[in-house]
């Protein structure tokens, strides 16, 4: 009989225990994984999961659109995460996300991606509601952000330190702001650096001397909900969705859904073996570009994109529209 003694063969004993544990764990994982077989999206019910990541400006709108889409297609699950436009672009490219969200237009080096514009938004400067300053011109904004002016008294306000709020690197709002004012990222002297729009709003609300630049949609929404913030005019233009829609507002940017464009020109989500966009993704993009979500866009104080700005891919799965437009008999009404 083999003498059992841990002290005599500790290494082998441990190795064997580990091997057993690994085997059991692998079997368990296989059983569980097989239980979740992927359902290929058939013609009838659109099902599956979509992951959207990226801009914190687009995210609330995307979440609302996703919710309405899920009401139409109960088998679908759409997950919306923030992280900044750069994250959306990186994730769309690598396939970590099915669709990326970006609050700017694509750059030259991003030609492997395709952007579908669903709305237009502007960027506005925001101060506390108690701040008597009502408008700033470009020169003053540059002076504030480069640290030349650091007291509100120099601008006609109550004496007090100006708290400069800047967006973190990788955020499209930052890039659009810098481009408009011809500033270099390194020359901005910030007192607080924020991630998403909500952090910016909370910072301004808590600090009467703060100035920040945010999405008009986010700022307008919060101001109407009662947050004590004030949107500053840009030159003589008030930061309203109407002015953004007219195209005359200086700092505007498109709100885009970004997907990878495979070499063949077919859009792809980058996930899975075949390169074509999944039916669910196509349907969602189509839905987001349609007029059915214009009320959602307007409710967030964005401007729906004109139909000519959509780059809806060929071969879109058409969903049946409530106003009776013909469908391919695919997605059912629910």
């Amino acid at each position: 009989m083999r003498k059992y003694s841990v002290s005599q063969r500790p290494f082998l004993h441990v190795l064997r225990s580990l091997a057993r544990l690994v085997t059991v764990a692998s079997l368990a994982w296989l059983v569980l994984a097989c239980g979740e077989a992927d359902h290929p999206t058939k013609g009838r019910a659109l099902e599956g999961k979509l992951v959207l990541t990226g801009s914190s400006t687009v995210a609330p709108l995307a979440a609302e659109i996703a919710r309405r889409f899920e009401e139409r297609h109960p088998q679908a699950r759409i997950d919306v995460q923030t992280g900044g436009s750069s994250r959306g672009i990186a994730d769309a490219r690598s396939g970590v996300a099915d669709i990326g969200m970006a609050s700017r237009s694509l750059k030259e080096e991003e030609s492997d991606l395709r952007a579908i514009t669903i709305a237009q938004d502007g960027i506005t400067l925001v101060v506390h509601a108690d701040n008597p300053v009502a408008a700033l011109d470009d020169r003053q904004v540059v002076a504030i952000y480069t640290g030349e002016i650091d007291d509100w008294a120099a601008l006609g306000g109550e004496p007090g330190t100006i708290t400069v709020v800047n967006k973190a690197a990788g955020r499209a709002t930052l890039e659009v702001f810098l481009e408009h004012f011809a500033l270099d990222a390194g020359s901005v002297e910030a007192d607080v650096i924020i991630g998403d729009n909500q952090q910016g709003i909370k910072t301004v609300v808590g600090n009467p001397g703060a100035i920040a630049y945010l999405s008009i949609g986010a700022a307008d929404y919060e101001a109407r909900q009662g947050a004590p913030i004030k949107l500053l005019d840009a030159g003589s233009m008030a930061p309203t969705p109407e002015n953004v829609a007219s195209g005359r507002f200086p700092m505007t940017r498109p709100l885009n859904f970004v997907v990878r464009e495979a070499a063949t020109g077919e859009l792809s989500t980058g996930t899975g073996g075949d390169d074509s966009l999944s039916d669910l993704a196509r349907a969602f993009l189509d839905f987001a570009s349609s007029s059915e979500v214009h009320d959602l866009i307007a409710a967030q104080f964005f401007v729906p994109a004109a139909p000519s700005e959509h780059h809806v891919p060929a071969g879109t799965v058409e969903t049946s529209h409530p106003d009776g437009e013909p469908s391919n008999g695919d997605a059912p009404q629910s």
Partner: protein
Amino acid sequence: MATPPRAERGLHRLLGSLAVLAGSLVVGVVAFLLLESLDALRAVGVPRFLSDEGWSPAGGPEGRFNLVPMLTGTAALTLGALLLATPAAVGAALFCRFYAPPRLAHGLRSILEVLAGVPSVVYGFWGLVTLVPLIQRLRPPGQSLLAGCLILGLMVLPTIALVSESALRSLPRPWLDGGAALGLDRWAVVRGIALPAALPGIVTGVLLATVRALGETMAVLMVCGNVVQVPASLFDPIRSLTANIALEMAYAGEHHRSALFVSGLLLMLAVGALIVLVDRLEPVRQHHV
């Protein structure tokens, strides 16, 4: 190790396997950090992490990767939090164990347990909405090293207090009675017998608190301002290593990403060094009858 009886062999093997699994996870994480950091360590090189002009991975021809401001930020936050929390926590533990009537002690312990369970993002949210405006009235901008230290201190206080209180409660009764029998008053017993004897436990609590403070991300991200600079005063905004990783990891390119892993590796090494240090310092317990 004695040979386990046959009846316990299965249990012995299972526990051993779990222990090995836990250990290999830790080793795996460190190995992964090392692998991912290699790119930056080679391409950027250690001297540049200390001497570049600021942190700006996209700026300049080769990017700027100075980690010193953020290292200082993390260190200052942790130190500040511990300085604030430790006296208060040990005091609370002493009060619970030696001075409070039983019901009050029980209530205080329950409160501390609840505080220990509050998610860090809730602390961060409260800090941003309540604490930062208060500090802002003292000196703008409000988001600052001070705010971070206060919030972190609040977060680690229950940990230190509960572990210290547990250490104090596990002291052998005869030691305390012996002190009383010698005519020592309560404070003398506490100061001369209880505290020195419970010191290893208290140090363990402080160590746990340090590790938590070093790794805290969300709360620090929300209240510290995230400006990359070496703080000149308590009211200056700072960025910690963890907040930096949270802000930038999602979209960072190759060298940038690898540099972030270097900062993660630094944190891991700091935690490891602390544990080794405390292990060395812990006095060997000598139980005299």
